């Protein structure tokens, strides 16, 4: 279980939340309201105050990389640091079976990153994050560049991982998607996070 107690960052008001194993909480709000900032603060990627716990272990008690391997933040346009696709995965063979269901070319491991479309990058970045087997996935508009079929495939993939205990906080600009994927919804209004 992920617990946030009085988490605050930049101009967001202190925010507390508990997300049970396998639960999905969605966050909505207008552009620029701080949805990404909230997720980045949970992952400890930006300066922030307040406490975060994974089960009983406090974030501050472990090195940040250890926290981030369990609480993975996936940016909308996640970056790529090497030239080849396969270099971004520690075990490419383990994810090869997941490519076709997401509508990805099974040969794309051999491609340079520059050959990928925005949508292909978004799906591969999701597989890259899931490959760590995180406890919590912080999804920042993970289907913003995808068509309906690919969006459905991504939602199904996340749902499968939730059955084995993955908790997610899902930022989405689409109310329909938020209702479809999540158990609870929150909205960011004028600097504060409120339950819907």
């Amino acid at each position, binding site marked *: 279980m992920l617990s946030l107690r009085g988490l605050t960052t930049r101009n967001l008001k202190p925010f507390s939340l508990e997300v049970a194993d396998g639960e999905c909480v969605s966050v909505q709000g207008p552009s620029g309201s701080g949805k990404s900032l909230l997720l980045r603060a949970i992952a400890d990627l930006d300066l922030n105050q307040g406490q975060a716990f994974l089960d009983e272990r406090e974030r501050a008690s472990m090195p*940040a990389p250890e926290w*981030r391997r369990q609480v993975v933040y996936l940016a909308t346009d996640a970056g790529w*640091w090497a030239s080849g696709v396969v270099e971004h995965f520690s075990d490419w063979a383990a994810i090869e079976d997941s490519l076709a269901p997401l509508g990805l070319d099974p040969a794309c491991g051999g491609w340079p990153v520059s050959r990928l479309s925005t949508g292909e990058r978004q799906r591969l970045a999701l597989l890259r994050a899931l490959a760590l087997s995180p406890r919590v996935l912080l999804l920042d508009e993970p289907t913003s560049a995808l068509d309906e079929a690919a969006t459905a495939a991504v939602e199904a993939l996340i749902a499968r991982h939730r059955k084995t205990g993955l908790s997610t906080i899902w930022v989405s600009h689409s109310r329909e998607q938020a209702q479809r994927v999540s158990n609870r919804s929150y909205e960011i209004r004028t600097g504060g996070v409120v339950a819907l």
Partner: protein
Amino acid sequence: MTGYIELTILDLALASLLILINGGLSLWLRLKLERSLALATLRMIVQLTAIGFVLKALFLTVSPWLTGGAALAMILFAGREIAARQERKMLGWWSYGLGVSCMATAAFVVTIFALTTQLQADPWYHPRFALPILGMVLGNTMTSISLGLDRLTSSAGRERAAIEAQLALGATRQEAMRPFTRLALRSALMPTINAMAATGLVSLPGMMTGQILSGVDPVEATKYQILIMFLIAGGTGLGAVTAVMGGMMRLTDERHRLRLDRLEE
């Protein structure tokens, strides 16, 4: 070997005609360079004459304090130069302080190493040896540190997504920054490597030329030049590695976050 030929003021006045020709060309072709040309010429004459007298006085006194003071002044000027050459400076004193401290450490270590082992000057801090060696090592270390830091800060700003993608997947700051520290160190060290590869074929180094002009056997002058090249390689390497590693640590924090807010916009 033939002796040293002393230059008279008249010799210099004759050579300065070449500057006047440049000025004339600038006027004729409307390059509008004549003002800065005149100013630069004047600065060169004044600065070099002044340093000539300063060095002469220092050589006469052989004081460790005065030599140290001159060395300090050289380092502070070089530090300002490093800060000025950064496109995205670090905020506060870091831009100046990091460059100066790494450059000073590297240049001092290398210079004192040379003065106490290869050159064995008596006393070891004799300004006739200490200041020229320090100057040469300093100049090159300054260039390598400013190139390395500039490359590091500009690529960290540009590659934010790539760095944070690694951090978000649990990489340490050292791992996430590695491609960019590597790039920064390469660009810091390439000029020295290129200079060593081209020297003797394309250009005769200034120090060696100076020794030959003052009557030193060319083979002996070569030995000095090789020594200087080794010292420069050591100084640039040490200075660049400490400055780039220090810069990498400053651009990140102990919670392994990328801290671009510590750079100027």
